[in-house]
Structures are given as structure tokens and as C-alpha cells.
């Protein structure tokens, strides 16, 4: 396996697992449920009569 391949895999694994641990620590899945359960108008930019 090439060094570049191993390095990128290692970086992605480290970033992924650190993010996973912090996601668990901050219980970010609750944020996802909260965001999906309420009305989000942020993707409606340009909708006539929005403002």
C-alpha cells in the first residue's frame, strides 16, 4: 500500500473517529431530530412573499 494511500486513510479515520466521539459527547443526533422536526425556512431563499 502506498504511503499516500495509507496517510489519507489514516487522516480520514482519525478525523472520523474524533468527530464520532465528540458527536456522542455533545449528543448531536438530538440536534438533527430537532432540526428535522421544525419548520426550516433557510432553504426557501427567493420564495415570493417570504420577506
Amino acid at each position: 500500500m502506498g504511503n499516500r494511500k495509507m496517510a489519507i486513510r489514516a487522516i480520514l479515520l482519525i478525523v472520523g473517529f474524533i468527530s464520532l466521539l465528540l458527536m456522542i459527547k455533545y449528543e448531536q443526533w438530538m440536534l438533527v431530530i430537532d432540526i428535522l422536526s421544525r419548520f426550516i425556512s433557510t432553504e426557501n431563499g427567493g420564495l415570493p412573499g417570504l420577506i
Partner: protein
Amino acid sequence: MAEKKKFKSYRISILRTTTQIISFILIFGGSFGLAASFIVLPIMAPLGNPYTTVAGAWQLMEFLLTMAIFPFIAITVIALGSLLIGRAFCGWVCPFGFISDVIYYLGKKKRVSNPTNNALYKLSIFIAAVFIFIDVTIGYNEYMGSSIYGYFGDFAREPSSIIDPTSTIFSLLFWYVAWGLYPKNVTELTTLVSYPLAFWFRIFVLIIAILMNYFVPRAWCRWICPLGGIMSIGTPYKFVKVYLDPSKCLGPTCSLCVKSCPMGISILDYKGHISNPLCISCLKCLEACPTKAISVKI
């Protein structure tokens, strides 16, 4: 017997299309009573549609970054997802990918040269980098208390939605129809002139995306999609690989795999692991290969 053989030769396409249809129904499962879940997938799924049951990693990342919340959940999905299966979700689950595939079946299926394809895909990484920079800037200002939120208007929480056809279809046009904002008779047609410029710009981008996909298969996914751009960084190094066995391959005389690839990858350039960042693991090459030289390996 002939029908059975035909079914067998298209079984991966049938399986993939079935998966795409089921995923599409489940992603918008709120329409038949499914509750919002905590699932985040590496796909373009709008947060603004009331029926969405899963969050798209890109949209969620933008939304959280601009609110000065570090999007650990989205980064986990993008980093580990791309490392494990690459861009397979683009090919098997993404709602806009599904729409692109439908357009692909109806479209012209033109090929672009390999250097152009490889050069243009870097545009998606550039677009992703630009939007992440904007998101971080908004988030940082939000955190420091000197909000620049107002400068971005309606696009402050998800700046990329201005060029995102998924949110244009499933959020902007959804609410446009659901709230009955469209002209209901001929006299109301004059109101179209007073619509915000952003509305027409988003419709223009949507039409461009559809036209791009009509002429070149999955052109939007290849060259513009910011999530695809980020996912393509880890895709060449994924653990579940599409593998070409050079000893079984008939070479350029056959080229059925190259002709069938919707992402325009020159598969024959690879010996062994097809480590192209654009590969969406749709397995059309595997299906097209007459000598079974292509397989999936871990």
C-alpha cells in the same frame, strides 16, 4: 428462458433502481407518517421539506456551521462514509442522483474527454471549499457576536442552497406550490415579474442542472455537487472497492464498461482497484462486462 437471461443481465440495475425508489420514498417518508429521525446520510437531502425523515450531510453541515456549532455528526458521516464505501450513496440513495438517473435514461448520453472530466470534477471541490469558507465566516461572526447574517439575507443559514437543485425542487418549489403562491389565473401572471431575483436565479440553476444531466450523464453530480466534491477526496481510498482483473479484461476492443459508466470514468486506465474519485459504485461496469473481469472487493 430469454427473459430470465435478460433479467439476470440487468439485475444490478434493477436492484439499484429499486433501492433508489425505496430510498426516495423513505427520505420523504413524512408524507405517510414516518417521524423525523436522527439519521444523517451523505446525500443531498433538504432540511426545509416538512416530510424529510433524514438529514443530508452537506445541508446539515452548512446549517450547523453558520450557527457556530461544529458539525461533528456530518463530518463523521462524510469522513467514515467516504472511506468505507466512497460515493456509493450518490449512486444508490441520493434523491437528486435518482432524478439525474431518470434524466440519464431519457438523455443524450454524450461523453466528454477524460482530461476534461478529471479537470472539471475539481470544480466541485472548489465550490465546496468556497461554501465552507462562507459558512465558517458566518459562524465565526455569529460566535463573536458581530453577526454578518443580514448580508446573506435568506441564504445566511445555507448559502449553497442558491445553487442546490435539490433544495430548489424539494424546498423552494415545494412551498411555492404548497402555499399556493403560483399565479392562479391569467391576470395574476403579472406578479411573476415582481418575484425576487433569487427565485428566478434558482429556477435558472435548476434548469441548467437538468439540461447538463440531459446531455452528459450525471454532469451535475460529477462537476458541481459540493458534497460529491468532498466525498471524492476519500473515494479513491475506500475499503469496498470496484476491482478490474486485467487478466480477464478484453481491453479497448470491448470497452463496454467505459461506455456504460455514467460518471465517464476511463475504467480501462486502471489495473486492479478502480480508484477514480468520481466512482459512485453504481456497478454498471460490472453488469456490462462480458467476461466478469470487474468485481467488488474489500
